[in-house]
């Protein structure tokens, strides 16, 4: 009987070890994370609408019902990534996530003059290169330095009422996510 009690005790210690192991390994092995879902929806440097435009479930749970959102995956080892979207919407915000879906940088339309979305994501090494001779297309862009390789950039746009539906859809449809 005492041996059974010991066995249960060792079992509980083992349960603790398994708990910690599962918890720490779960992010690495998850097939349902945002990166995997976006990889199914589109290739690198392709802006994908992730909200439910036609009432189907969203690709990634990222924004509430009054938002439209587009995301694109990038790899900074290929060079900086340039994002632009023309047009005016009531509110937009941008988040940059690493491979694991952790938010590393975010800003909103108040961070720019006139609210134009035009920014470049790059690493600090690439920033040094760009500073030597700023390309023509980067003249008005905001530079965002992030310490990551692969990542996701997500643009959310607020839709206060259905009359804004077309303008925000157009804004996200014209979102260009280009490798420079």
């Amino acid at each position: 009987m005492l041996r059974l009690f010991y066995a249960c005790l060792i079992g509980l210690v083992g349960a603790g070890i398994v708990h910690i192991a599962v918890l720490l390994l779960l992010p690495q092995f998850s097939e349902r994370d945002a990166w995997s879902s976006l990889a199914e929806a589109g290739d690198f440097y392709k802006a994908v609408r992730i909200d439910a435009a036609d009432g189907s479930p969203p690709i990634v749970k990222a924004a509430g019902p009054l938002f439209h959102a587009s995301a694109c995956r990038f790899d900074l080892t290929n060079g900086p990534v340039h994002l632009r979207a023309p047009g005016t919407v009531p509110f937009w915000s941008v988040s940059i996530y690493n491979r694991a879906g952790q938010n590393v940088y975010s800003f909103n339309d108040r961070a720019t003059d006139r609210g134009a979305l035009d920014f470049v994501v790059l690493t600090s090494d690439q920033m040094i290169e760009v500073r030597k001779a700023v390309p023509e297309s980067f003249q008005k862009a905001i530079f965002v330095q992030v310490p990551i390789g692969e990542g996701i950039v997500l643009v959310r746009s607020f839709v206060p009422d259905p009359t804004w539906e077309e303008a925000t859809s157009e804004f996200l449809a014209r979102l260009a996510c280009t490798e420079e």
Partner: protein
Amino acid sequence: MLKTAFLTFVVLCISIVGGGASVWYTLKANESVGAVTIGEWTAFPLMGTLDADPYSRARVAREGLLTLGRAEGLSFSAQRDSDGGALRRECSYRIEGPVPSARFWTLYAADPAGAVISAGTRRSGALHSYQVLRLADNSVSIAAGAHPAPGNWLALSGTGPMTLVLTFFDTPIASSTGASDVVLPSIVKVGCDA
């Protein structure tokens, strides 16, 4: 020999089942590590950031979330009313009180899977601060329920448990650490359909 094998089996069973089930349970429970609770509302300010604890990281990976950044906003959810009863879609609630400063905020009801509950009509399943009427002291009073109500009305439908989600955008409460000083509206149950 057989006894040793049996005891080893017991140890392995308790370890694997207990360890797995405890992770599953903690990830499912809303009251998790790193939660900030204000009245009936709960938020996870560090969830999805680089400072997140392992539980939040696992939850983000498992549910495929991309959380709001600090410059974007902070989302609060509530599953209980002011008396501690679980929120239900067939009941009516009054959400009233002051709201913290933010560029705007949105309020909607979600089912346990996270899908937005709409009224099933052309009416949107969500309210936002640009469209709500405010009281003289700048606080809000919103009726949530299946029956139309004067003033601000968040339309619900169906039966079963629900979660209310209140999200503040471009707000100082997300970018500062002062989330615990914030006062949020209370959720008072008015009545239920029989």
